[in-house]
């Protein structure tokens, strides 16, 4: 078992851009069975097995150590597990798939323009209401971590797996934490981003699993791939 397993997004823009980045680095990905196949290879690199998976699955399996290496969004690593980011090495940002995880509140909240306002509002709200302020999001770990660093504990998360931006209007939450690239969807839903409420600037990354089993051969393959894609071998790699 000396082959290294690398997972890349299996469809859409993410797959195209990943292929482009690998091809530019001299490692063209092939998918012999076409879009219906989930196995692939890299021409000239027999030591690499390529798997085509969904971006969310790649993040989860990297954290668990079932994949050695993968291309997926940083945001998804944080959501795969509370300590997800500690189980991986972000080897190289790949320059695509950019999106920000942000806090957005109703534009009608004319008194709220930064985090310190939200801190006041959270405390005031539960002093006047029998319930806590509710935040709709699928970014549960990132949200909890960010609010904890601001010392805000008095809020509840309402898990939202789609159309999060509609949560304030539907009455299921008071504000949201969501991913955005242009902010236009948020604006169309009467929401504004808090300038100091940007939780994470995410993009697609080449990510190494620290939980995977690393043999000497696999480590050699890893270093080659990371360097070819323009990443640096930092002291972090010694722990593998």
């Amino acid at each position, binding site marked *: 078992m000396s082959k290294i397993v690398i997972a890349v997004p299996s469809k859409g823009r993410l797959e195209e851009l990943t292929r482009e980045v690998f091809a530019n680095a001299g490692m063209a990905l092939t998918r012999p069975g076409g879009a219906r196949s989930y196995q692939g290879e890299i021409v000239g690199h027999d030591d690499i097995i390529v798997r085509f998976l969904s971006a969310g699955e790649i993040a989860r399996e990297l954290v668990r150590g079932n994949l050695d290496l993968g291309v997926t969004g940083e945001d998804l690593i944080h959501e795969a597990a509370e300590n997800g980011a500690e189980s991986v090495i972000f080897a190289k940002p790949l320059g695509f798939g950019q999106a920000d995880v942000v806090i957005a509140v109703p534009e*009608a909240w*004319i008194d709220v323009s930064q985090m310190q306002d939200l*801190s006041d509002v959270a405390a005031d709200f*539960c002093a006047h209401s029998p319930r*806590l302020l509710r935040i709709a999001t699928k970014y549960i770990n990132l949200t*909890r971590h960010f609010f904890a660093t601001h010392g*805000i504990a008095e809020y509840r998360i309402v898990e939202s797996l789609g159309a999060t931006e509609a949560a304030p209007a539907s009455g299921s939450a*008071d504000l949201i934490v969501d991913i955005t690239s242009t902010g236009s969807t948020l604006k169309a839903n009467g929401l504004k981003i808090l300038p100091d409420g940007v939780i994470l600037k995410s993009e697609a990354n080449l990510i190494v699993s620290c939980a995977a089993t690393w043999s000497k051969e696999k480590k050699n393959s890893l270093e080659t791939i990371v360097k070819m894609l323009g990443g640096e071998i930092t002291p972090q790699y010694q722990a593998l």
Partner: protein
Amino acid sequence: MNVGKERVDIVVTTITQKRTALTALVSSAGAIEIAPPILLTASDYFDLAGEEFGRRLLLTEGANGKQYCLRPDFTLPIAQHHLTRKNASPAAYGYLGPVFRQRKSGPTEFEQAGIELLGHVDAHKALANVLDFTSSALNIYDISAPRMRLGCIALFETLLDELQIPPVWHPRLRRRFGNVSAMDALLTRLSAPHTQIDTGVVKTRQQLIDEITQKMHEDGLSQDVGRSPHDIAERFLEKQALAAATVSPKKVELLRAFLAIAGPADEVLPKLENFYAMAQLSLGDAYNTFRKQIELFSQVLPKSKINIETAFSPRLHYYTGLVFEIYGNSGKVLVSGGQYDRLLQALGAQQKINASGCALWVNRLEAQREVEGKQ
């Protein structure tokens, strides 16, 4: 009611014997031994304590889509049980059993024992019972001179009134109490609370309410569910009217000076008295109660090393009076407890019901003995 008054005098040496003694203590005179279900409704914890506590729950989902958690503590289910009793007479509940929490290293199961004294009119006597129980438990594990940390929520909350801090700041200060950096940031804002906002034409409260209502209507936001146009307008006006909610630098300095008071009990009490003199405040009821509580701790645990930290709080809003933590050799908490008179109201009680209690970390107490034995 004399929970824990009967000292366990039999000589106990093995872990099993100590466990038997602890079980006897938990169900000792006056206490109702209670074993709430291990599977509990998760939303009760989230509603009460928010996400910071919620992240530590071990969650699971029912076939009905409802979220459940494994019991993370005994206090909430015991308080809920107390509220279902027809006559809300004072009661003492003792418990011993497993609790489950999410830790950095992964899910953890460990055992807790403790008592809850609910509805006792004489709060001082109830606290004395909690301490007797604690002392008996420590005695079982041969711990006689532990380190402990005491704090008092009432001292801080009373000070806000005494310094006449504008009421609008009270809930905000209370919620950040116990978090050093968030409290520091908030205190910095107190003397210059809001960055000047471009207000343009000054609008009346009613004009603002009308505009906000109109905007909410356009964006399809309900005016009944979340923050109301009135709440938003009020806080907007508060931001505009900087002067109205500003706290003088002198008062902010006093709050900072108060929160910095910490040290051994015999040094801190004179420091506190100096502080009140400097702030030109009389030694009020909250201080006198606290002083008596310290005396009680020194009486019940005479060899303990008591450290007082005025800024210490478990960061759960239902704590009201004294709070304490007792530490083992490794620096880990062996016992934590205090007074939480706002808990039962937060769970739906119509009037204030006194509550105090403590929780023992049984596995740590047992490990503690081993460490001491090796030394």
